[in-house]
């Protein structure tokens, strides 16, 4: 049972990639990409978790209480922000593609010509 969290992270990453590869709608594709990215948060937090330890916040508990790793949590925080910014930008790109070509289906899009 101890590999379940890692298995779920791998599973979600691959499921997200599957969605990206088979998607027929750019907005659906972007959401699938954000699912794939969310698997990295799960992986990071699962690595730093320690059974029975508290959160790395010492506001209401004495200093020295066993706590989980704060570094991976900080990494995951950065990850969340980057994911949100990237999703917003990709959505704008999808909207622009729709306005210029009239379709959101990636298979109907022709390669760019200048």
């Amino acid at each position, binding site marked *: 049972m101890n590999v379940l969290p890692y298995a779920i992270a791998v599973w979600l990453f691959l499921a997200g990639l599957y969605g990206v590869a088979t998607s027929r*709608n750019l907005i659906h594709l972007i959401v699938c990409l954000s699912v794939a990215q969310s698997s990295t948060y799960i992986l990071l937090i699962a690595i730093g978790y320690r059974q029975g330890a508290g959160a790395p916040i010492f506001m209401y508990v004495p200093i020295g209480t066993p706590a989980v790793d704060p570094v991976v949590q900080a990494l995951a925080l950065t990850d*969340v922000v980057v994911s949100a910014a990237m999703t917003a930008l990709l959505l704008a790109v999808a909207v622009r593609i729709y306005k210029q070509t009239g379709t959101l289906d990636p298979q109907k899009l022709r390669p760019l010509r200048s």
Partner: protein
Amino acid sequence: MTVIQVVVFVLVAVCGTAVVLMREPYRQTFLLSLYGLLLSMLFVILAAPDVALSVIVVGAALPLMILTALRIVGKHST
């Protein structure tokens, strides 16, 4: 691992898969919001309240942007 951890992990996996498999963008947006909620529950259980808070606010903000984008592309969204 405690029982509640296993349950929430499995719920996250199921909901994430459902988000990918749902092809209808409007419904997918609501599933994504639910997925954000489940992720934040998971991170609270895994003693990461900072990450839980940011996942939950992103889970509230992103679906709004996706819905607006879907409104722009209109009925062609499916």
